[in-house]
């Protein structure tokens, strides 16, 4: 394993960053958010097709790139850095992971359509769902199809297909058959919606919710990389501002009261980067093992690294990528990065003074994204609670 970025990952990052700098500066993001329809179909096409982001996690035999969670994480860092409203996390990461884990013909067919970026899919579950408590969904399967109402769904407005848990099974339904109602959202660049199904025809994808749990875990683990990108933008924007802004005939960045807070934030972001990279690497190893184990993998399956990945680099020898390792790495990354992104955005607002409170300055887009991300896929507290078991730090018994 390595916690650094490979050359291929740096090239991918550069391609995404160039595209976003060129096509989606903060003023454009804000203008689109105000329009009530933040998603930009043309931008998604460039990202999904030209850069190939849509099919990153999809094996080559379904038309994808056969890359790993490490590469997807790098894309998310850049999308976080630009708070880009595209369905990458919802479709190319989470829905894709559910379909990969479902292993049915129907799922494979859908993967092929997602790989090109022509279609997108979304999970019809609340974005606040943590991987640890996957609820029996609010949707029921009856003779007339699926019925029910799911709140706080992300990525549904643009999705062609919704992946719906009903009872203990996972189904696919056409988005055209359901009612998607946008909700006024805290996060302007990733709004939530209410999805209502009323006797909708559905295709069964999988007979249990393992696939859903895998999707939530991958989503949570890679959301840490998005949070890292958000935090990095906030830090670098703040540092640039305090160097320029003068009060008391000095740049305000020369005051120790601000310098020390920014130094602490930098240290926390250094830790966040290590945690996010570790989660991505652990998830990549877990998915590689899974693909190798059922013999369907063609991408890297021959060199399944189970048990050998971590032996080489860290002298402490504790980074072997075992079965529980991904779960721990995800919980650690989420418990840390969610908080750091919020803190970075809050410091960014504060150190911009009055300017930070204006609608015109883009920092509010980052604050809103950071705060929503903190809740998404489990709060930092949910992930710490999970570690009580994963890391054997037992809770007190009794009340």
């Amino acid at each position: 394993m390595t916690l650094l970025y490979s050359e291929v990952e740096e090239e991918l990052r550069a391609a995404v960053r160039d595209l976003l700098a060129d096509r989606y500066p903060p003023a454009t993001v804000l203008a689109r958010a105000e329009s009530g329809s933040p998603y930009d179909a043309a931008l998604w096409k460039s990202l999904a097709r030209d850069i190939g982001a849509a099919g990153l996690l999809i094996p080559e035999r379904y038309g994808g790139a056969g890359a790993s969670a490490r590469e997807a994480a790098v894309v998310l860092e850049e999308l976080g850095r630009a708070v880009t409203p595209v369905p990458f996390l919802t479709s190319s990461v989470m829905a894709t992971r559910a379909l990969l884990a479902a292993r049915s013909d129907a799922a494979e067919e859908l993967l092929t359509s997602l790989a090109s970026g022509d279609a997108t899919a979304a999970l019809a579950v609340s974005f606040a769902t943590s991987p640890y408590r996957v609820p029996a969904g609010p949707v029921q399967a009856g003779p007339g199809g699926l019925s029910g109402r799911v709140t706080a769904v992300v990525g549904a407005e643009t999705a062609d297909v919704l992946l719906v848990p009903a009872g203990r099974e996972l189904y696919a339904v056409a988005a055209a058959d359901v009612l998607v109602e946008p909700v006024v959202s805290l996060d302007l660049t990733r709004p939530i919606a209410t999805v209502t199904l009323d006797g909708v025809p559905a295709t069964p994808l999988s007979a249990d919710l393992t696939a859903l749990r895998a999707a939530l875990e991958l989503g949570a683990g890679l959301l840490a990389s998005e949070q890292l990108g958000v935090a990095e933008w906030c830090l670098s924007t703040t540092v640039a501002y305090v160097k320029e802004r003068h009060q008391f005939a000095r740049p305000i960045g020369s005051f120790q009261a601000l310098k020390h807070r920014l130094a602490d934030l930098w240290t926390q972001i250094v830790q966040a980067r290590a945690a996010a990279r570790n989660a991505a690497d652990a998830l990549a190893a877990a998915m590689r093992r899974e693909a190798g184990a059922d013999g369907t993998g063609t991408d890297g399956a021959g060199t399944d690294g189970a048990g050998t990945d971590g032996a080489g680099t860290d002298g402490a020898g504790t980074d072997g990528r075992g079965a529980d390792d991904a779960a721990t790495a995800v919980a650690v990354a989420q418990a840390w990065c969610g908080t750091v992104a919020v803190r970075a955005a809050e410091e960014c607002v504060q150190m911009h003074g009055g300017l930070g409170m204006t609608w015109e300055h883009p920092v509010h887009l980052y604050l809103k994204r950071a705060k929503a991300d903190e809740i998404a896929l489990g709060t930092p507290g949910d992930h710490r609670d999970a570690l009580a078991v994963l890391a054997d730090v037992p809770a007190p018994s009794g009340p």
Partner: protein
Amino acid sequence: MTVDEAGLAERARAFLAGHAPEVLSPAEFLGARFDAGLSWVHFPEGLGGLGLPREWQSVVDREFTGTPQQDYGKLAIGLGMAAPTILAFGTDEQKKRFLRPLWTGEEIWCQLFSEPGAGSDLATLATRAVRDGDEWVVDGQKVWTSGAHHARWAILVARTDPDVPKHQGLTYFVCDMRAPGVDVRPLRQITGEAEFNEVFLTGVRLPDTLRLGAVGEGWRVAQTTLMNERVAIGGSPVRRGGGMMGAVLETWRARPEVRTHALHQRLLGLWVEAEVTRLAGARLREQLAAGAPGPEGSGMKLAFARLNQELSGLDVEMRREEGLAYDDWTFRRSESVDFFGRGPGYRYLRAKGNSIEGGTSEILRTIIAERVLGLPAEPRADKNVPWKDLPR
């Protein structure tokens, strides 16, 4: 010589086959390891290394797991600070003379940097070194000198020119701790014991051959030492759930009666912080293996100090009645520096030093702000003023 990584591992195994640790004393074993170039593989041949890439050290360390190692608590200053400084700035004679016994533990080193009047502002130090023919005569007082009572040698920074601004008038020396005029006095600390010392230097004569680097270059040489010190304090590898966390978890798991919900929430938060710090340290070591130590080590030291203090404080608190007792206030000189040993009360008190030694957390934040983030410096009253004219 050309060696690849496999060849290096082979070389280490061949050495171990020919040098059974059971029949050699630890010093003999370590000496033979030095002579075979397997101490620091990136050091030159003949000086404990093989001139190989720094990142290959892990290959050797893996092969030598379970063989005699140095007592790091006693030798940290020699191994972590003096050795890289001597390698970077020493003459060939100095490298030949000092590195081998430093590695084997036969000669212990200490650090004569801080003074009563020069802590965070180290460059304002007042210990004078005056040239007298081929010798220097040193007068002054140093403080917070760990292990001076064991040390054979010290790394010393002294003022050789008071008429220039403070950073320019310093020179770096190796100080002979057995020279007449070196007086080591134990300094009792809040833990009750004396791990540190005051060192009084009165007319100490050092030959010019003990100077490290050029006259007036002392600040630059000291930066190499301090950069390595911060990596040594904050950047050493720990197991997941090891270090101070290990001591707390042991009690937490074994004694359900100490557990409360409030402590549980704090402990989980600290477990996460310890883990992200461990990962950041591992990532930093990967970067270092690929390049050189930069100011990033300062961030690790900051995090390490905070964690140790929080965890050791929680440890005392969760023990309640037991936390009201202390193991031993006897005034004695400690054998080595130990952050994690003794009882929880000792660990709590000793950890207070973690945010002071090797650069206070406040100084480290300033270093990060200015050298990593590029923020403007504070207005300063001491720039371009001769040292002798500074208010003191």
